[in-house]
């Protein structure tokens, strides 16, 4: 891949050099970067002792508290908590009290202190008005439960539930207290709803455990489970209609499959949702609906059929979807293929670490390898394979339609989650030829100042109402929001590729050919626009032309040092040129001067806060990292496209590299 990620130690070194090699910030960051737990504890202890005046000491004690709790070291955890609280003004301690109480109760240590913290937090929250009380009461109730007072816990939890009726964690806690207080039927209903709303597997295990205690006979137990599960389903879906009902029924189907309840009805729900999918359906729906159908199919015992369904979406399934990877691993395991089960489980552990998935992985891994000794190293290799992969080459399988798809990415060099999206766009550039896919990357000041930003980029961001960075827009028609760490670059690539391939082979809405001429610093683009195979209508459509630098070297906080297909300027501004004559072919000409582009870049760099691309006038600006101040004349491309402003659909795109020659055509 062209794009390279600088190693963060190097980035850190650059940063530290720029600020102060001996600063408390550098020392703190260095201590936090220590991987081994015990060594990190030592480094943090040294940091808090060495920098008694540092504002970062609070962060040091906070980190120490978390590490000690994790180790179950009650006295050291409480000592760190005391130090931390001593650095926080009393009026600002509410959330800290709450977090400390919950962490201690979760580990079942320091419960007396946890109760004091929880009470203090509650006292502050009750004085602090609405919006803060629910979580504080939820924690307090949990601490009371841990201390053996389930009655008080249940009462408090009922108050905590106000405004959190659909939160599976709150419901899970309530169910726990209800059961402990002898209200098992109520607890079963509450737990069922918690599972329906996404509660963890532990909740489902508890549900089944309580069910077994409630009804000893197999048939009566089955009947009770069916009644509770269906009641949960109907209370959730019966009032919905339209697309919301379709999605809810798909989710209900997966829920019913988890308990093997009324599988024929579940199949009907899941199939209806899968059949509702069309080419225009968002890729996330396509994956989720098919996943839910596969879960029902597996529950009905058709493992191979379910496996085929899951495999058909495996490339696009979210690394954050524990359900998907658990189901895939489980089916492989049941079909006697532990190697693939391990691979599936590991894919579900690249960005998250859910306990149930880790347990399943360890169990199968032990069976295959005899121990879990090499598991973490293997998991690291799986993660790396998500970052370093060969995208392959696109094979159209027939004559193309002549349509070039436009993929646009809004990204930021300071944006951590943009790494996967940026890398995936690089891979798209390797996979698709430029005759089929043209890419543009617009840099914006999200989350921090990015010197590759232009006012034009920000205008495009606003036009699409992008949901933050990264946001990809495929052919103006499909928006895919979100990215993640480098480990999921392959997944993002697959997702973008899936969305792109939906539109590949379509007849272009209009025809577009461009000719780019350069004379010294002046670039002139001549665009010939005509009706395309789809009989497009030029009226109202807009021709956009972008000056693109194919590669820009710049390293921001996310460590990416080389950025591809960076939009440096839109010819004629973000509004483009309106096409007014639908009947006739049209030739349009637009030009710009590279020296003026450079001047515009320098203006923005000199006073970024005075520009429209600066979101938030009150933001502080602390200066740029080392950055380019002009466009590189040797690697410029012009990308043009025709867009319908009513729908944002891109009707056709074209490109031509900017010639290095000095003569005009």
């Amino acid at each position, binding site marked *: 891949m062209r794009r390279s990620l600088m190693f963060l130690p190097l980035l850190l070194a650059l940063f530290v050099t720029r600020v102060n090699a001996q600063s408390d910030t550098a020392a*703190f960051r260095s201590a936090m970067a220590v991987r081994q737990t015990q060594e990190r504890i030592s480094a943090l202890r040294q940091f808090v002792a060495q920098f008694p005046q540092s504002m970062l000491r609070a962060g040091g004690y906070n980190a120490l508290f978390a590490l000690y709790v994790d180790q179950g070291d009650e006295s050291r955890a409480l000592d760190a908590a005391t130090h931390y609280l001593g650095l926080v003004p009393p*009026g600002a*301690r509410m959330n800290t009290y709450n*977090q400390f109480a919950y962490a201690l109760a979760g580990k079942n240590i320091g419960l007396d202190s946890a109760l004091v913290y929880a009470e203090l937090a509650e006292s*502050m929250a009750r004085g602090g008005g609405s919006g803060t009380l629910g979580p504080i009461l939820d924690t307090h109730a949990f601490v009371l439960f841990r201390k053996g007072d389930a009655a008080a816990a249940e009462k408090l939890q009922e108050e905590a539930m106000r405004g959190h009726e659909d939160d599976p964690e709150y419901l899970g806690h309530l169910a726990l207290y209800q059961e402990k207080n002898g209200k098992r039927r109520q607890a079963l209903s509450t737990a069922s709803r918690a599972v329906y709303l996404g509660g963890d597997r532990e909740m489902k295990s508890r549900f089944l455990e309580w069910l077994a205690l409630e009804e000893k006979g197999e048939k009566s137990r089955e009947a009770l489970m069916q009644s509770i599960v269906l009641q949960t389903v109907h209370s959730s879906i019966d009032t919905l209609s339209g697309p919301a009902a379709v999605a809810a029924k798909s989710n209900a189907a997966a829920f019913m499959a988890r308990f093997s309840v009324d599988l024929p009805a579940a199949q009907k729900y899941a199939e209806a949702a899968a059949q509702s999918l069309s080419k225009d359906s968002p890729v996330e729906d396509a994956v989720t609906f098919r996943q839910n159908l596969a879960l029902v199919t597996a529950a009905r015992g058709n493992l191979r059929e379910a496996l085929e369904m899951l495999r058909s979406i495996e490339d696009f399934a979210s690394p954050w979807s524990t359900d998907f990877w658990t189901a895939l691993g489980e089916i492989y395991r049941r079909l006697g293929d532990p190697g693939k089960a391990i691979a599936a489980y590991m894919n579900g552990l690249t960005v998250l670490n859910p306990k149930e998935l880790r347990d399943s992985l360890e169990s199968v891994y032990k069976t295959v390898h005899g121990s879990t000794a090499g598991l973490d190293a293997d998991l690291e290799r799986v993660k790396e394979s998500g970052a370093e992969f060969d995208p392959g080459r696109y094979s159209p399988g027939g004559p193309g339609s002549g349509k070039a798809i436009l993929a646009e990415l809004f990204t930021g060099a300071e944006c951590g*989650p943009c790494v996967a999206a940026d890398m995936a766009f690089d891979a798209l550039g390797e996979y698709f030829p430029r005759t089929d896919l043209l890419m543009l990357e617009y840099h914006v000041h*999200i*989350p921090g100042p990015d010197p590759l930003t232009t006012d034009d980029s920000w205008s495009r961001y606003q036009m699409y109402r992008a949901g933050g960075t990264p946001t990809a827009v495929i052919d103006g028609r499909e928006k895919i929001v979100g990215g993640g760490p480098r480990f999921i670059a392959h997944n993002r690539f697959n997702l973008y590729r899936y969305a792109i391939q939906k539109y590949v082979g379509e007849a272009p809405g209009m025809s577009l050919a461009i000719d780019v001429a350069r004379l010294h610093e002046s670039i002139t683009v001549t665009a010939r626009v005509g009706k395309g195979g789809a009989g497009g209508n030029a009226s109202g459509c807009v021709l956009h032309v972008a000056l693109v630098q194919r590669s820009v070297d710049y390293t921001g906080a996310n460590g990416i040092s080389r950025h591809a297909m960076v939009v440096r300027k839109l010819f004629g501004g973000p509004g483009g040129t309106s096409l007014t004559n639908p009947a006739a072919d049209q030739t349009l000409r637009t030009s710009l001067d590279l020296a003026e582009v450079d001047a515009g870049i320098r203006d923005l760099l000199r006073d970024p806060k005075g520009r429209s691309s600066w979101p*938030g006038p*009150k933001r502080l600006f602390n200066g740029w990292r080392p950055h380019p101040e002009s466009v590189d004349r040797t690697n410029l491309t012009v990308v043009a496209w025709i867009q319908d402003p009513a729908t944002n659909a891109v009707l056709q795109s074209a490109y031509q590299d900017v010639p290095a020659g000095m003569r005009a055509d």
Partner: protein
Amino acid sequence: MRIIAATGIVLFLFVPPTGNGQPQGKEHVSVSAKLSQDGVQGGGELRGALIMTVAGGWHVNSATPADENLIGTAASFSPPAGLSVVQVQYPGGTSKKFAFSEEPVSVYEGTVVILFKITALPSTSPGDYALPVDVSYQACNNDICLPPAAIRAVITVRVLSSGAVPVHVNDELFNGNSDK
């Protein structure tokens, strides 16, 4: 996970002289304000707190992010003539490592409280004064970052007539503060 959820969207917040106001916010962050007294005499002072609530799964940079290019949370007051705001105290951030970051980031999650002090000049006439404050922040979750944003709250500070005694309110929040 103990995360305090954000609440609804309101354009402006007026904290009445009773010292209480409903949270207001944009998208994933809300802000409400509290005062320590129902009023202040000319020449006196009272304390205030901005309660910033970040929705579950989201974080904002703390006031002192380790990287100077990150946008720290900041409260910017625009006091009217006769009032001034001093001693703005931000809580320390929580150092947290995210899936996308190799290094921990100093962030606020859940609810955090920013404390400040309001002083009234001796010459300030009795009456209600609007004290606007813009709380600026920048939010991310594990897979997306949002543009920097600001929430404006308008706190109403009542300057009491001579001889009137201010009543302490919101003791749970301010009780024990060292500068009380």
